[in-house]
């Protein structure tokens, strides 16, 4: 309906105007005049239909009608002529609103609002004020119809009003040019991609208008040509809006491409990459919902932080059946294209859910690994504490009792008979108890490991082994406590295992550290056939190695000895 009205209004205006050839045409010829008005109305309608809540559509349609109304200044009849004069430059207010409020249809800044308000005032109140004083012949043209609004012919006042209108118009144009230029420079990549046609066209039109008003103020002879060029520049604006509109359509096509891409085998797919391509935001971050901890994690299971309310990034949470599955952290410009984000999220939903499950699994694994390592470390710390307590407490007390017994023995009179053997017996029993306690504390935590490091401790271990054992250890400096400890107990268990089951004649132990890892091996020349299955000590050995993120390996072919090896990360 509005479209038909616009079509007819254009034809009518041009028809009326074409008869008013008494004055030099202000407009840049019939085709361009129609193009400007119709393109405003058409692209306004298109925008209005897809986004009814956005004021941009109605504003553009209105601007189109105002444009046609301004063509009436060419009319012969005084009524139509006067209407045309009233609306002579009113479309400029519409133009300004469209350019400044694109793409949201809202004027966010105080300066934007002020500019539009001032312009509305200039093209309505000031325009009417001028017409009250302006006589047609003096101010418009000799052959034009009469200005029906003229009350008194006062050339001085009319001239002053006109100069004021033009000067204020210049100021508005300068501010607009500055504003648009700043906006273009500041825009992030996705923002720029969306806004560049409209901002660019607006900027060009504003510059041309600025030049043409300047020419009018200076009364330059080229005034008419400039007005024509300004007309062309204006026509570009709705075309630019249409282009931006088409871009959005193209983005929809991108979603179709995304769907095809998501069909690829999961292993070949980088979901974040695909989504960031589809959304045109290379800085896109993807997080998956980790329900167990109510937070988002990345594909490696590491936590992802959501941007705060004032941050320069925005987040869109993707839900499925009311449950969050993922979050897209993206450029705020995408907010203006919520439709695209929604379509992309919908298209990627199933894949996202899939990836989420995998990310959750990885996060759980990472957590499990960390908790195993923490357990080992806690056990290790506890062993140290117990060893220390035994050393500082029980052992010292027993030694001091042994001293007292020694003293007692020395002070016994020579003729005590049976007392002396009893004291000696007690003393020897105490010494035996201390020896047992010593073995026990060494088994809990070998002090030499803390004091001298792994090679010395392995040396001591092999010295005491019940099989001939040799050590070859090349370790750079000290390693983390938990690693030294794990390596020590690995060798200790390995030696015990060889002594118990292998019937070996000798064992060879090696330890070497290189590029952030420690490799420890225990090799015997026994009967082989050992297995980490079935509740042997070897299973526990493997568990401890793996709990610290290490790799355990066992090679034990029958008749060819047993090779135990553990590789620990110690970065």
């Amino acid at each position, binding site marked *: 309906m509005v479209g038909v009205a616009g079509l007819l209004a254009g034809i009518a205006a041009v028809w009326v105007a074409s008869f008013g050839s008494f004055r030099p045409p202000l407009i840049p010829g019939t085709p361009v005049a129609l193009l400007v008005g119709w393109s405003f109305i058409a692209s306004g309608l298109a925008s209005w239909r897809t986004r009814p809540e956005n004021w941009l559509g109605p504003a553009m349609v209105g601007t189109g009608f105002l444009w046609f109304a301004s063509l009436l200044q060419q009319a012969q009849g005084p009524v139509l002529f006067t209407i045309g004069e009233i609306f002579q430059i009113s479309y400029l207010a519409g133009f300004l609103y469209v350019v400044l409020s694109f793409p949201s249809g809202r004027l966010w800044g105080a300066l934007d609002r002020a500019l539009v308000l001032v312009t509305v005032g200039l093209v309505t109140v000031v325009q009417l004020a001028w017409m009250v004083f302006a006589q047609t012949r003096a101010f418009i043209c000799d052959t034009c119809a009469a200005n029906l609004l003229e009350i008194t012919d006062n050339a001085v006042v009319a001239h002053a009003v006109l100069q004021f209108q033009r000067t204020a118009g210049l100021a508005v144009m300068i501010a607009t040019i500055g504003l648009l230029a700043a906006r273009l420079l500041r825009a992030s990549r996705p923002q720029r991609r969306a806004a560049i046609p409209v901002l660019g066209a607006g900027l060009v039109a504003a510059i041309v208008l600025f030049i043409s008003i300047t020419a009018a103020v200076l009364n330059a002879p080229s005034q008419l040509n400039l007005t024509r060029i300004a007309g062309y520049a204006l026509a570009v604006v709705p075309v630019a809006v249409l282009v931006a509109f088409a871009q959005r359509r193209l983005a929809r096509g991108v979603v179709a491409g995304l769907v095809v891409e998501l069909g690829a085998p999961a292993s070949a797919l980088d979901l974040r990459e695909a989504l960031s391509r589809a959304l045109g935001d290379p800085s896109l971050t993807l997080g998956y919902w980790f329900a167990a901890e109510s937070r988002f994690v990345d594909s490696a299971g590491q936590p992802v932080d959501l941007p705060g309310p004032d941050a320069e990034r925005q987040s869109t949470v993707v839900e499925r059946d009311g449950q969050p599955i993922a979050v897209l952290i993206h450029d705020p410009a995408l907010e203006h294209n919520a439709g695209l984000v929604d379509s992309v999220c919908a298209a990627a939903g199933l894949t996202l859910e899939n990836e989420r499950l995998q990310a959750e699994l990885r996060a759980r694994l990472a957590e499990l690994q960390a908790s195993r390592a923490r357990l080992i470390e806690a056990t290790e710390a506890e062993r140290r504490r117990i060893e220390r307590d035994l050393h500082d407490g029980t052992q010292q007390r027993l030694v001091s009792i042994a001293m007292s017994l020694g003293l007692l023995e020395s002070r016994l009179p020579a003729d005590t008979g049976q007392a002396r053997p009893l004291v000696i017996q007690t003393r020897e029993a*105490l010494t035996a108890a201390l020896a047992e306690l010593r073995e026990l504390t060494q088994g809990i935590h070998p002090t*030499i490991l803390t004091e001298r490091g792994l090679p010395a401790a392995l040396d001591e271990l092999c*010295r005491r082994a019940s099989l001939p054992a040799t050590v070859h250890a090349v370790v750079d400096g000290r390693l983390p406590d938990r690693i030294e400890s794990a390596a020590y107990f690995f060798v200790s268990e390995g030696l015990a295992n060889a002594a118990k089951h292998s019937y070996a004649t000798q064992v060879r132990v090696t330890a070497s550290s290189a590029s952030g890892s420690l490799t420890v091996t225990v090799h015997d020349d026994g009967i082989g056939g050992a297995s980490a299955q079935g509740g042997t000590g070897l299973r526990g050995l493997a568990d401890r190695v793996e709990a610290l993120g290490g790799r355990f390996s066992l090679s034990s072919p029958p008749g060819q000895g047993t090779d135990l090896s553990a590789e620990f990360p110690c970065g």
Partner: protein
Amino acid sequence: MRVVVADDAVILREGLARLLTETGFEVVGLAGDADELLDQVERYKPDVAIVDIRMPPTHTDEGLRAAKTIRERHPEVGILVLSQHVHAGYAIELLTAGTLGVGYLLKERVSDLTELAASVRRVGSGGSVLDPVVVSQLVDRRRVDDPLAGLTAREREVLALMAEGRSNRAIAERLFVTEHTIEKHVKNIFETLRLASSPDDHRRVLAVVTFLGAR
């Protein structure tokens, strides 16, 4: 004989001082950590410093390190290290680093006053003392192609007592044989192990301990 005692546990430090006084030593200084010990050795120049291996601040092997420092600054001061753990490696380190008068004993040896007094005297007069438990760990170590396999049981016994730092006469007394018999055993042992024999007790200990520790 003048002695300095270093142990961070008051109860053991005081107890040890009392035992030593009882057995005729003059305890000239008591120290609670390595720094104090070094100060007192500097000041009193004792014949022997008796040092607990584990002392503040780290409670690891401060005693051992202090012992080495004393060795460097005052080689004439005998050092007897007491340990609650059997670390043959430490003992060998200590013995091979020094020239005269060093000992390594387990702490519980303090209950046998006679043995303790003998050990302190031996260290004070430039001899060596190695705890029997450490020695047996060295002697009994399992080896491939064990060089000690060529020794008789008696010779092994003599070897162990030699490693403990005892003189031929002391070994003879202990085994209820004549000193001459022990001399014969020692000669055999040195030949079997292909060690150069030495009349000096300390060098003898050093040779034996180095031999045992190396394999």
